[in-house]
């Protein structure tokens, strides 16, 4: 059953004063899949996320979300349509309890719409949400100040911030970065659960092995352009991809 892709990107380009950060990138994100986006540093992956989520206006190209064009819409509108994104650099409130960080998204028009009018107690919704992402309620973790949480929890908090919007697509920008192997291993079930609930994920990652456990398909970027797309095992064999990561093979 051919279904329209939930996210369709076409010929997206952006240059910053002479540096071409993203050039002619186009791809489809299918409903319910996990698409990995990989590539060496400086390939333009974060810029791509910024372009799609509305934080940066593209020079050319278009982005269609659920059939609607969102190319130049402001970020908060895009978030309200159901496309959320995480930030690599998070700045939660150090001195406030962790769950307070979710109050902001819980006040968005999208949440107000879907939960209908008076939300009741936003605080308790926030705490429930944190429990969903693995904050142990009994140990009072949701009440701890964000400043005292280890990185693994902060990443979950960031994910929870997106989930508060009950989005249909989440763009994860290097959510594994800085985490230890075991922390990543405990994060993976959460992402699988999201997928099971029908959330589509696009994950920018450097940790290839862990990413390949999750991703259905993979897209490779280098110097701002897409150089390969497909199933992980096949893509990694392509000469261009190898070249991008390892450099040209010496001849002779």
């Amino acid at each position, binding site marked *: 059953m051919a279904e329209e892709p939930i996210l369709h990107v076409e010929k997206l380009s952006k240059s*910053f004063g002479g540096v071409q950060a993203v050039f002619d990138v186009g791809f489809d994100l299918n409903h319910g899949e996990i698409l990995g986006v990989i590539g060496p540093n400086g390939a333009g992956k*974060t810029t791509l996320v*910024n372009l799609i989520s509305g*934080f*940066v206006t593209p020079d050319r190209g278009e982005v269609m979300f659920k059939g609607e064009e969102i190319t130049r819409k402001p970020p908060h509108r895009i978030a309200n349509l159901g496309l959320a994104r995480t930030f690599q650099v998070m700045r939660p409130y150090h001195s406030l309890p962790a769950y307070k960080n979710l109050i902001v998204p819980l006040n968005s028009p999208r949440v107000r719409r879907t939960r209908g009018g008076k939300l009741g107690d936003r605080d308790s919704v926030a705490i429930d949400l944190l429990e969903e992402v693995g904050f142990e309620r009994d140990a009072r973790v949701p009440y701890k100040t964000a400043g005292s949480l280890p990185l693994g929890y902060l990443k979950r908090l960031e994910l929870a911030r997106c989930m508060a919007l009950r989005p249909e697509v989440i763009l994860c920008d290097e959510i594994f970065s800085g985490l230890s192997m075991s922390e990543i291993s405990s994060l993976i079930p959460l992402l699988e659960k999201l997928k099971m609930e029908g959330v589509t994920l696009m994950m920018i990652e450097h940790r290839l092995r862990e990413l390949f456990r999750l991703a259905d398909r993979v897209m490779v970027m280098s110097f701002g352009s897409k150089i390969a797309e497909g199933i992980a095992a096949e893509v990694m064999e392509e000469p261009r991809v190898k070249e991008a990561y390892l450099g040209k093979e010496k001849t002779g």
Partner: protein
Amino acid sequence: MEIIIYGAINSIVFALIAVGFSLVYGVSRIPNFAHGSIYVLVGFLTWSFLNDLKMPYWAAILSSLVIAAALGLAIYRFVLMRLRGLPTSEIIASFAVSLIILEGLRMQGIAGFKGFIGPFYVLPPLIEGKILVMGVFVDYQRLIIMGGGISMLLFLWAFTHYSKMGLSLRAIAQDEQAAMMLGINSDRVAMVALAIGSALAGLAAVLILPLGNIAAEQGYRVLIYALAVCIIGGLGSWAGTILASFVLGFAMIISTSLFGALWESVVLVGTIILILLVKPSGLLGKQKELEERV
């Protein structure tokens, strides 16, 4: 024709007034609200040196400029330096300094200080007389403004492109952290920037004030003009400041001749609001806000 000449002169006036402020803000991101007050202060100082101390004109001018630069430096060292990084406090503090100076000049009866009240304070023009330029009578003073203004702008350009200190200023303006890593002392540079900025305000004062009289209230006007130019021209852009000076300079002259002097300020603020609505980062502003941060 008249409009073109007076428009050009007016534009240079704006440029003179704004460049000092723009320099300081471009380099250190400090809004020096005291800019306008230093302008007026220099005017009164020169007047006092001239009339009370009977110094020769050039000496009076030079001394006031030196004092202005020292004051700018002091303002940074004793007030602003302690508040770096707290934008709210920086604004409030430099605003307070500005008021202390301006209202202080109007004080009467403290320790025998008479206070500079009334429209009687005038600085004599550097050269008296008019000259016929392309069919329009122009005072020599205005021509001096043109000449002075243009040479100052050229000098500044050369300074920031060829001298060590000037290059440091530009370095800090472009990327403070990188410059600091290269060993450029950001506080020192800020002090120099403020000293130069204040001296520029003073220079503008001695060139422009002879056209009219000196009054403390002008401090606010000058500040507003400087700010208007910076907003319209865009932050951090030399070309923007100059362009905006011309835009405003001509706009004001044209509106004065069409509608009368009363509407001057309305045109000024109107232009600002227009720019804000259409292109908030200014005509040539390099405000890559979002792109920079994300």
